[in-house]
């Protein structure tokens, strides 16, 4: 088993941050979020789960897909160049699995070039969970809090026997991590990281109880049950659950005129014609929104919030597995933790198993 210390790890991360974008858990106004960091001092090492998943760095909330310039020489189309090489550090196994789930759709031919390029240019360094959090249910979805199969390098903090002093601030640098290199990409990124070979077993994370998950094929017969409307009585029909979800991936694409530099509020601009600069934006959308499914003529096949809430669960556990393979839920528990009205997916899974 190869191990490294926090001290070596931070030195290595500082080195990485010097020549590529380093994205890591960072405390922002009492929330822990994956953010680009300048060096390791900004990284939050002790967190249960980040408040938002890592998806925003692969499917950004807003992404410029295309820039259209109309000038005297004709129309010029330009694709904005994406970021360079990146490393995501401190990825939890559920968030790493969520990327695999997104891969099933976005990398399926014809692949989404924006997602694919970001994925290609990013190395994933995982940080195993020592135990499952209060709302976590990853084991019900076939994962484990120390699952290493979805990252390039996995770090697992070692249990240090008895040493209370180790937990103090002075001891942080001496905290040890088991290092598992999972891919060639991982091998390449490790480079200068100081590793020691030691005898011993990998630390094993504590796991909680499992919730049975109904097979995709079992869901259609439950579609018309009154259960969904009753469940949705308390649903606020906001987009929270979909936006904090690591696998919800719906988006909208629209073209917008970009106001010219120096344009006045009246719309006059400095020489170039109105509508001269257009941007094609892609931004997150949500099936929980009333207008999401509205079609030309005004008809809405998912008019009630019960229709919409049901769709969210069917998408995750029935449609997505049938269309792309994996279940579109990794058991991170963010929607459970953050839903203002206690719509609890674990409770729903238990309920549908008895419907």
């Amino acid at each position, binding site marked *: 088993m190869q191990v490294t210390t926090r001290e070596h790890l931070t030195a290595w991360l500082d080195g990485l941050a010097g020549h590529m974008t380093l994205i890591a858990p960072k405390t*922002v*106004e*009492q*929330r822990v979020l994956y953010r680009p960091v300048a060096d390791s001092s900004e990284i939050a090492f002790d967190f249960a789960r980040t*408040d*938002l998943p890592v998806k925003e760095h692969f499917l950004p*909330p*807003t992404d410029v897909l295309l820039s259209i310039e109309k000038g005297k020489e004709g129309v010029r189309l330009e694709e904005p160049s994406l970021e360079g090489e990146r490393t995501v550090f401190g990825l939890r196994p559920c968030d790493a699995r969520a990327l695999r789930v997104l891969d099933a759709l976005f990398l399926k031919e014809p692949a989404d070039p924006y997602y694919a390029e970001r994925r290609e240019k990013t190395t994933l360094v995982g940080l195993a969970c020592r135990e499952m959090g*209060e*709302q976590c249910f990853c084991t019900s979805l076939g994962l484990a809090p120390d699952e290493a199969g979805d990252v390039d390098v996995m770090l697992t903090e070692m249990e240090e026997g008895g040493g209370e002093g180790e937990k103090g601030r002075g001891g942080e640098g001496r905290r040890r991590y088991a290092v598992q290199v999972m891919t060639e990409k991982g091998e390449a990124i490790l480079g200068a990281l100081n590793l020691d070979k030691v005898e011993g077993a990998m630390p094993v994370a504590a796991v909680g109880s499992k919730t049975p998950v109904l097979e995709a094929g079992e869901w259609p017969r439950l579609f018309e049950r009154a259960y969904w409307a*009753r469940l949705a*009585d*308390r649903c*606020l*029909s*906001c*987009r*929270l659950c*979909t*936006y*904090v979800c690591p696998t919800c991936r719906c988006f*909208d694409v*629209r073209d*917008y005129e970009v106001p010219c530099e120096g344009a006045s509020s009246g719309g006059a601009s400095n020489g170039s014609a109105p509508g001269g600069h257009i941007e094609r*934006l892609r*931004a*997150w*959308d*949500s099936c929980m*929104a*009333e*207008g999401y499914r509205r079609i030309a003529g005004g008809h809405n096949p998912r008019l009630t*919030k019960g229709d919409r809430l049901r769709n969210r669960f069917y998408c995750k556990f029935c449609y997505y597995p049938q269309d792309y393979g994996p279940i579109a839920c990794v058991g991170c528990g963010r929607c*459970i933790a*953050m839903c*203002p*009205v*206690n719509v*609890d997916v*674990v*409770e729903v899974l238990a309920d549908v198993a008895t419907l």
Partner: protein
Amino acid sequence: MGEGSELIDKIRAKARELLQGGRVDCFIGYEEGSRGRARPAFIYDPQDAERLIWDERCAHNLVVYLHQFKSPLRRGEEPPRVGILVKPCDSRSLNILFREEQIERERVYVVGVTCDGVRTNGRPQERCRRCAERVPLVYDIVMGGVPNVLGRDDYADVAKLEQMSPRERLAFWAKEFDRCIRCYACRQACPACYCFECVAEQLDPAWMGIAIDLPQKQFFHAMRAYHLAGRCSGCSACEEACPMGIPLSLLNRKVAREVEALFGYKAGQDAETPPPLATFKKEEQLPM
């Protein structure tokens, strides 16, 4: 809330009676949720009244749910009649909706409860510390003992905001709104936000666009605050629903205080006084 189970029994009995007698089609209260949480409950069957609870975890403003009972459940029928449990703060939202003719008074049977304050994750809510209204303002029946506590609002948080320079204030709000993910949980949890189509989501014309960037976030929150001027009951449902911890109550309290200073009006005190921003007096005309 000290009476505990006795009060819960009274609430359940009332809900059962209302449903059995056909006075209401649904009773909206609270029930035991998962993981030790309390959550909104919708009782249609008198037997299910047993699920109802009432304690300091019952923080949601249930008045927001009245909007889903404004139209008939089945085509050709009358809209349903609803029973609802309200705290004093929630009762102000009720007055706002009655005044704005969103729901007829006689369609709602209001079970008011006196309140000593609610908690979120075991912490007393800020607004409860400030709350001086411990008895609902509108009800058909009121339950619960004489409240033990009375809060006082010194608007210290608003004063702190007012002391900032405009530049500092802009920076403060930009930092707060930057965390917004445009999930609209604040708007959806708000009883006073009930437009069929929100300006933020309107596509034709597209006032805001779909981008989830700071300009859209700032515009959305500023717009919502303005639309709530003189209409916000101060229930904090928006702030409680926000997954990113944005201090939305602070913004709403600032606006509410301005409205009170300008017009001597506090939202939700009764269902009759015309709200200042929905009325026009000739003498209010600005000099041309």
